[in-house]
């Protein structure tokens, strides 16, 4: 019987010929990613208790991104502890203040097709865009992995979602995610794997595929995954990931799926999720032009270089509404540097954007200029749970970078296609 892509990777990591959904297997991890919040401060005491060192410092990637930018003695000490631990444990892949882990990992060439990767963060499914099996775990699970290089999993079944056609200009992967959250709900994927396939994949950039896989977390999936293709190869070559192809990293024609869904990309409209759940998604045209105080372009989901390009497509030559704030938090310092080189940074700054240091701080509600009482925010991030980004009385809507940028101009939730259409008419 055929195997899905996820089953093939799990079988390899478990040193097995094949695996079946539901069975429990022990896998060797190829790479473990940890960050400053769930990493050293939580894992070090567990390793001490076990009396062991990390199993292989070269298979660990450590990223400081959560308590960033540090704002008080506690956040400073957490970042200092992270640096100390990296030095003591000879972690050479330590990315300190270089951006959000899920974006830094692929940018630095750490992910390649066929890898079995554990990530100490719930948006770890992002790595699935590269044909990896990458899933999120908590700190205790990570402590076990750091000590032994192994972890157990109950083999997940695969839910296949075929994307057909091509997105209209002004519609992006984020809109696919929100539409799926609205259709399937936050528990819809039942902690199984979501594999995206279909003829619509080819037209999506690697960053758009990262967004797709990233928000399988909001579908309740264990992870998301996409088979590698020429677009993957080109990205990996560019970042120097040294992948020569090879390995049969795609689902077999006879593989079995728990469910099979389809989404017509041609017909997809921009989506917005109303407070306080990504599952409250609906077409932007149904949102009644709700007023916003803040537009937020940030996070691993919504501030990669391509996301910032989408915002610039809308904001070029425009100004944001006088009583609206636009905060831009590039997902990595590399993305920030590229925006400076290609003119994106100037476009966004001229439009009235305030740039904040790359990190998770505001999206995760950890540090920074969090939402105040009753503040309404439209955000490119993944989660709009009550109080996540600040005050319990604040409200967060979720949308694509196109929609957030267009809405910042008007000060109300706005369909970005109107702006792109006006640009086409003018040219």
């Amino acid at each position, binding site marked *: 019987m055929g195997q899905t892509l996820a089953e093939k990777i799990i079988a390899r990591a478990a040193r097995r010929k094949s695996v079946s959904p539901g069975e*429990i297997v022990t896998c060797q991890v190829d790479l473990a990613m940890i960050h400053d*919040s*769930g990493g050293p401060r*939580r894992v070090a005491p*567990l390793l001490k*208790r*076990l*009396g*062991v060192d990390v199993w292989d410092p070269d298979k660990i990637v450590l990223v400081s991104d959560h*308590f960033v930018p540090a704002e*008080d003695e*506690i*956040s400073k000490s*957490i970042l200092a502890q992270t640096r100390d631990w990296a030095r003591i444990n000879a972690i050479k892949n330590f990315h300190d203040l270089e951006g959000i882990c899920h974006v830094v990992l692929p940018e630095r060439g750490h992910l390649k097709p066929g890898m079995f990767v554990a990530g*100490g*963060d*719930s948006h*770890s499914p992002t790595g699935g865009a590269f044909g990896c099996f990458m899933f*999120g*775990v*908590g*700190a*205790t*699970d990570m*402590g*076990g992995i750091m*000590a*032994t290089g192994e972890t157990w999993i109950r083999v997940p079944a695969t839910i296949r979602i075929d994307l057909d056609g091509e997105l209209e200009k002004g519609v992006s992967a984020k809109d696919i995610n929100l539409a799926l959250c609205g259709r399937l709900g*936050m*528990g819809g994927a*039942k*902690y199984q794997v979501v594999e995206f396939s279909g003829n619509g994949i080819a037209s999506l950039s690697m960053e758009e595929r990262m967004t797709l896989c990233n928000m399988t977390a909001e579908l*309740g999936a*264990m992870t998301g995954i996409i088979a590698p293709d020429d677009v993957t190869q080109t990205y990996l070559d560019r970042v120097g990931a040294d992948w020569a192809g090879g390995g049969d990293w795609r689902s077999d024609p006879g593989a079995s799926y728990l469910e099979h869904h389809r989404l017509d990309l041609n017909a997809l409209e921009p989506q917005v999720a109303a407070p306080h*759940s990504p599952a409250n998604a609906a077409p932007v045209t149904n949102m009644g032009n709700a007023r916003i105080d803040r537009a937020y372009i940030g996070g691993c989901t919504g501030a990669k270089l391509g996301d910032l390009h989408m915002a610039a497509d809308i904001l070029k030559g425009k100004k944001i509404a006088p009583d609206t704030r636009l905060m831009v938090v590039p997902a990595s310092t590399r993305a920030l540097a590229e925006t400076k080189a290609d003119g994106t940074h100037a476009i966004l700054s001229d439009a009235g954007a305030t740039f904040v240091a790359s990190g998770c701080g505001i999206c*995760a*509600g*950890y*540090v920074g200029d*969090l939402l105040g009482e009753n503040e309404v925010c439209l955000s490119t991030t993944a*989660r709009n*749970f*009550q*109080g*996540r980004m*600040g005050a*319990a009385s604040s409200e967060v809507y979720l949308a694509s970078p196109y929609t957030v940028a267009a809405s910042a101009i008007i000060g109300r939730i706005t369909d970005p296609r109107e702006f792109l259409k006006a640009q086409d008419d003018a040219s």
Partner: protein
Amino acid sequence: MPPDNRSLTGKAWVFGDEVNTDVLAPGQYMSGSIPNLAKHCLESVDPDFAANVRTGDIVVAGENFGVGSSREQAVEVLRALGVSAVVAKTFGGIFFRNAYNLGLYAIVCGEADQIQPGDILSVNAAAGKITVSSRKLALTCDPVPAFLLEMAEQGGLIAGLEARLSARGGKNST
């Protein structure tokens, strides 16, 4: 005591669907200690919970309990407040793993919506049974697999690894 006889008894605190990790362990307090974070556990949905929950009490909820972040502080605060088990229709996958890793029973019960606030529950995790003695109600839940029961009985993943590594000679003997 063999795991089969494991029975957890406590008062029910009932919540709705999709109680997420930001509500259980709010980001603004994540830099501080577990006891401090625990004071804010669930405060945005029930401001009285943290101050009034007692050791052994059981949290009951609907779909997708613990959805969201991988932060296992969401489990630790419940443990710190004395909660012995969470009974829910379904769980977020990472929360479920974290729960057993830290010795908190996470019980999948499709009939959890029959439980009312203040009910005294007796949970038999191995058999997959919950009884509400005051209302003569018996609910069926998914039996907890043996390996998870064992992990919870041992006190979590690290305690189990401790035993395994010292048997292997990998742990420094002092």
